[in-house]
C-alpha cells in the first residue's frame, strides 16, 4: 500500500505526552505495543480530569446548585463532542456506557432479545471478539435464535461471498467488528451494512479498534448501532459509547432501571425518561466522561470540529500503517516467523507466531527486553481455532509508537529465537 516509507524520526504523538511510556520496565525503556488491549493516557487529559474533579465536581442531572450544574454541563458537552466524532445525526443518539462490552450487551438485551423468535438468526464473523459473540449467544439462548458466523479467508479478510450466502430473511441481527483486534483486518463496513439491510437485518458495528485509528461516519456507513470503548482511545477506563439510531433507541425498553432514567415512579406504575437518560440509569462515570472530552481535545487539538477531527484520525491511521509496514518488513527477515493477517486493508496490528517459541514464552522474553506485547487468544478463541493456532503474539501500534519500537520488537524476537535455538 505504501510505496515509499517516509522518514519517521519521532512518533506522531510525542511519547513524552504519555508518562507511562517513559516508565522503565525490567530495566529497559518501554516499547509499549499493547494499545489494542488498552492505550496509554496523555498527561494533559489526566490533568484536565483532575482539575474537573477538584474544582467542578458534583453529581449530574439532579441538582440546582452551582457545582451540580457545572458538572452536568461538562458531562453533556462531551455528548456533543462524541456526536461529532461519530457524525451522528442527533446528540440523543449517544449513550454513555461503561465500555464496548456493556454497549453490546445493552443492544443484545434491550433490542435483540425482545425481537428474536425461535429460528431467527444472528450473523457474526469468525473475526469477532468474545464481547461481540457471547452477548448474542445469551440473547439467542433466551429466545431460541441461532448464532452463525461468516467465514474469513486465510489472509484474514472476510469472505464476502460467504457473508452474503449466510444472509437470509431469518437474519435479524448482523454484528461485526470494524477492525479485527487480533489481526488488524479492516472490514468493508458500509458494503456489509447495505447487504444486511437488504435482508431487513439490524446492524451493530463493534468499533473498539476503529475508534482510535479511523474516521467513523455512522450515517455514511448506515450503521444502526455502533459501539466504542474509550480506554482504547487513549481515554479513561470505565467509559463506553453506544450510538443507536434515534427511532431504534426510542422504541427499545430500558436496559437497567434506577435513578435518572425515569419520568415518574410509583409502586403501581413507572414511566421512563426520554433519550439519552432512559439508558443511563444511576450515577454515570462522570469524571470518566469528562476525561473522554479532554482526551478528544488532546487528540484533535483545541477548537476541533468534524473536519479537523477527520483529518487528524486519518493522519493517525496512515501513520500507524507506515509503522506497521516497517515492522512487518523487519519481522519478515526472521526465519520461522509467520505474520497472520494480510488483507488489503490493515490497521496497526501485527499478529505473529515463531515456529520454535510458544507465544506465551515469546511474551515473557519480549517483556524482559522492555517490549510489551500480548500473547494469547486475544479474546478471539473461534478465530484462533480457524487459524489453527492456540495463540499468537500481537504487537499493536498506536500514534505514540515509532520505528524504533519496531526495531526493538524485531531484535527481542531474535533474542527469543536464540534462547530456544
Amino acid at each position, binding site marked *: 500500500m505504501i510505496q515509499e516509507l517516509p522518514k519517521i524520526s519521532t512518533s506522531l504523538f510525542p511519547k513524552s505526552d504519555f508518562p507511562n511510556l517513559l516508565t522503565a520496565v*525490567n*530495566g*529497559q525503556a518501554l516499547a509499549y505495543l499493547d494499545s489494542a488491549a488498552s492505550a496509554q493516557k496523555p498527561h494533559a487529559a489526566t490533568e484536565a480530569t483532575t482539575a474537573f474533579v477538584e474544582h467542578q465536581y458534583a453529581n449530574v442531572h439532579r441538582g440546582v446548585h452551582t457545582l451540580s450544574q457545572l458538572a452536568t454541563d461538562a458531562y453533556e458537552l462531551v455528548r456533543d463532542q462524541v456526536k461529532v466524532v461519530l457524525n451522528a445525526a442527533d446528540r440523543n443518539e449517544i449513550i454513555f456506557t461503561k465500555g464496548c462490552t456493556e454497549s453490546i450487551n445493552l443492544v443484545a438485551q434491550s433490542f435483540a432479545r425482545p425481537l428474536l423468535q425461535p429460528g431467527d438468526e444472528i450473523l457474526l464473523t469468525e473475526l469477532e471478539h468474545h464481547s461481540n459473540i457471547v452477548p448474542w449467544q445469551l440473547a439467542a439462548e433466551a429466545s431460541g435464535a441461532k448464532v452463525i458466523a461468516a467465514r474469513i479467508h486465510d489472509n484474514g479478510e472476510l469472505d464476502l461471498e460467504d457473508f452474503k450466502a449466510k444472509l437470509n430473511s431469518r437474519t435479524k441481527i448482523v454484528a461485526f467488528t470494524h477492525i479485527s483486534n487480533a489481526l488488524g483486518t479492516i472490514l468493508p463496513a458500509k458494503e456489509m451494512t447495505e447487504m444486511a439491510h437488504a435482508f431487513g437485518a439490524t446492524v451493530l458495528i463493534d468499533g473498539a479498534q476503529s475508534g482510535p485509528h479511523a474516521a467513523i461516519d455512522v450515517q455514511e456507513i448506515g450503521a444502526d448501532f455502533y459501539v466504542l470503548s474509550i480506554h482504547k482511545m487513549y481515554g479513561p477506563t470505565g467509559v463506553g459509547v453506544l450510538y443507536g439510531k434515534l427511532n431504534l433507541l426510542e422504541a427499545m425498553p430500558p436496559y437497567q432501571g434506577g435513578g435518572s432514567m425515569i419520568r415518574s415512579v410509583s409502586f403501581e406504575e413507572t414511566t421512563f425518561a426520554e433519550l439519552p437518560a432512559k439508558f443511563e440509569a444511576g450515577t454515570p462515570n462522570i469524571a470518566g466522561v469528562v476525561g473522554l472530552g479532554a482526551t478528544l481535545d488532546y487528540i484533535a487539538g483545541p477548537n476541533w470540529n468534524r473536519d479537523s477531527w477527520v483529518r487528524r484520525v486519518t493522519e493517525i491511521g496512515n501513520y500507524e500503517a507506515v509503522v506497521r509496514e516497517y515492522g512487518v518488513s523487519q519481522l519478515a527477515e526472521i526465519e520461522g516467523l509467520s505474520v497472520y493477517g494480510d488483507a488489503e486493508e490493515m490497521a496497526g496490528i501485527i499478529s505473529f507466531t515463531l515456529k520454535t*517459541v*510458544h*507465544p*506465551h*514464552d515469546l511474551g*515473557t*522474553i519480549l517483556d*524482559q*527486553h522492555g517490549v510489551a506485547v500480548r*500473547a*494469547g*487468544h486475544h479474546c478471539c*478463541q473461534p478465530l*484462533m481455532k480457524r487459524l489453527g493456532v*492456540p*495463540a499468537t503474539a500481537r504487537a499493536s501500534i498506536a500514534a505514540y509508537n515509532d520505528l524504533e519500537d519496531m526495531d526493538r520488537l524485531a531484535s527481542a524476537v531474535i533474542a527469543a529465537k536464540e*534462547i*530456544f535455538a
Partner: protein
Amino acid sequence: MSWDLRDLYQETILDHQKHPRGKGALENATHTATGYNPLCGDKVTIQLAVNDGKIDEIRFDGEGCAICMSSASMMTVSLQGQPVSDAEELFQRIQKFLTANDESAAMEDIDTLGDLAALGGVRRLPVRIKCANLPWHTFKSAIQGEQSAKTE
C-alpha cells in the same frame, strides 16, 4: 535486563520441552483429567494407571508453552512408579516451592526436587507460575477423580 532469562529458560527446561518424556495417550488409564489455563489457552491432559495405591504409568498430552510442557514432562518422570501418597506429598512440596511468599521457605526442599528445581525461575514471574503449575493441578484433579482443572 535486570534478571537473566536463562534463569527461567534453563537447559533442563529447554531439554524437556524439546524432548518431552511421558508424552502421549495411556491405554487402560484409571484416572484422567484435563486442565486449562484460560488466560493463554494452555491445555494439559494427565492420565494415570493407578494400581494398589501406586502410579504404574503416567502420561501427559496437550499444547502449551515451554514452561508448562516441560513441567508436565518432568512431572511424569518424577511420579512414574511412585506410591500415590508420595506423589501427593511431592505435589505439596512443589506448591510450596512455586508459590510460598517467603523465599527461604520456598527454597527449603530444593535439594529434594531434582530436575524440578529448574522450574524455580517462574517464582520471579507470577503470571507464569500458573504455567508451571497447570500439570500439577491437573494431576491432583485426576487423582481426586475430577475431570477438569484450571489454574486461576
